């Protein structure tokens, strides 16, 4: 089981890289969807089959892997958008930064005062790396869809950390958290649609009228 978990986590990190390097919004969304779907398997792989993990896994899969990407893809289709406006600093620099951050997360995790059973594991570094990559996406991308994707990746990183705490989050709360995420992305989708209508672009650099 341990091996499966690690493979899942590695896959999560690879998807991070892919998202940083890809310019096609469609495939970015699909990649984040795949990441969400993989994440849904992690509680099952890490803690075995219990009622809690199964419900959490199914819920996370349905929302992170299916519904949220569907919402985003639908929004994208309506806006007839294919390619993003490009990152502020180019794809290769973002990828290099992403790799640096990921490596730093791995080194940093070794210095953390972790509990003995988590030392040397992949959970914490993956979580941190995913979190930072989400941030990187949020900061370096100019279009609204990629920023939402960055937010989702960030959430995914937190989700990875959350699986360490097994049952600290009661199912009701966990469901609420996922629901919030879905409704949040849904509303972001609506706002994106309005941005597109109003400004004829999703480039958020155009959103700069409010100052001072």
């Amino acid at each position: 089981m341990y091996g499966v978990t690690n493979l899942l986590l590695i896959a999560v990190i690879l998807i991070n890289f892919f998202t940083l390097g890809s310019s096609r919004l469609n495939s970015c969304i699909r990649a984040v969807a795949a990441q969400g779907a993989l994440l849904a398997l992690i509680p099952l792989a890490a803690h075995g089959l219990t009622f809690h993990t199964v419900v959490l896994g199914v819920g996370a899969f349905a929302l992170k892997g299916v519904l949220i990407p569907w919402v985003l893809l639908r929004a994208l289709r309506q806006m007839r958008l294919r390619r993003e406006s490009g990152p502020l600093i180019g794809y290769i620099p973002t990828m290099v930064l992403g790799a640096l951050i990921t490596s730093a997360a791995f080194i940093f995790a070794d210095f953390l005062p972790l509990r003995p059973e988590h030392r040397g594991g992949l959970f914490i570094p993956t979580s941190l790396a995913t979190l930072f990559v989400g941030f990187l996406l949020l900061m370096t991308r100019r279009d609204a869809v990629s920023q939402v994707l960055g937010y989702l990746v960030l959430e995914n990183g937190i989700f990875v950390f959350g699986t360490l705490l097994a049952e600290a989050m009661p199912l009701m709360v966990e469901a609420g958290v996922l629901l919030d995420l879905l409704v949040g992305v849904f509303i972001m989708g609506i706002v994106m649609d309005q941005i597109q209508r109003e400004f004829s672009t999703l480039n958020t650099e155009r959103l700069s009228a409010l100052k001072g």
Partner: protein
Amino acid sequence: MIVTTLLRLVLLLAFAPLMLGVIARTKAAFAGRQGAPVLQPYWDLGRLWRKGIVVSRTTTWIFWAGPVVAVTVPVVASLLLPMGALAAPLSFEGDVILFVYLFALARFFTAAAALDTGSSFEGMGAAREVTFACLAEPTLLLGFVVLARLADGLTLNALLGAHLAAAWGSSGASLALIVVCLMVVLLVENARIPFDDPNTHLELTMIHEVMVLDHSGPLLGLIQYGAALKLMVLGAVIMRMVLPVDTGNLWLDAGIFLGGQFVLAVVIGTIESVMARLRLARVPQILVGTTLVAVFAVVLVLR
């Protein structure tokens, strides 16, 4: 020892073009065609060997050296590399470096031969080839760093020893990443889709093929034969990582090696069938990404 060495040479020299045939056959199957016979690359080589040579007056001996080096290098490199479980006859500490730079040498001569013709298209191809190779090389080296970390020695024999089977259990993640990275390097180095299209007919989009436009007859045959050898040698690295099986029986080992190469050829054919060719500008991006993934694999084994 002698038997093993001879057997290895025979395997390499005789079966390398077969891989090209299998790839072509796989692609044909995907496209719903019957395809050329598997042995077609051999017939092609034979046809080229019987043809005459046309050489431009502007060229020098370098033009001739290119194809020769292209064939010799994979053969020499193969002597350093265990093919499947068949250990390399030539082995010393640090032969990894020689292995990597032998291919650089071949590239140098191919590119120089292309430049030697003075054609603008071939110069362009040479520039692209060298650029991509530059970006692919770190990945290859980093892959060997990961292997070196897992092994106890710096010979290719040690790096690709039987301990890999156990290593998959302890650091399978890194090995998986490296296999993927090396696969990308293999596709780039051998000018396969999605990085280059060996069958393309438009000079502007070619990379590798455009460099050999001026070669004809036996020289072209040598280059194509060299390419097949290179594919097999690099493929042997990957397949050894995926299939680290030692049976102890010489003939069984040789069979496993050939089987592995066959599978690899099918995989390459599949990749070529399902993927579209990348825009040229995207290729460096992918290669940098691969390098980063390899760095990440190194970080994983180092912690």
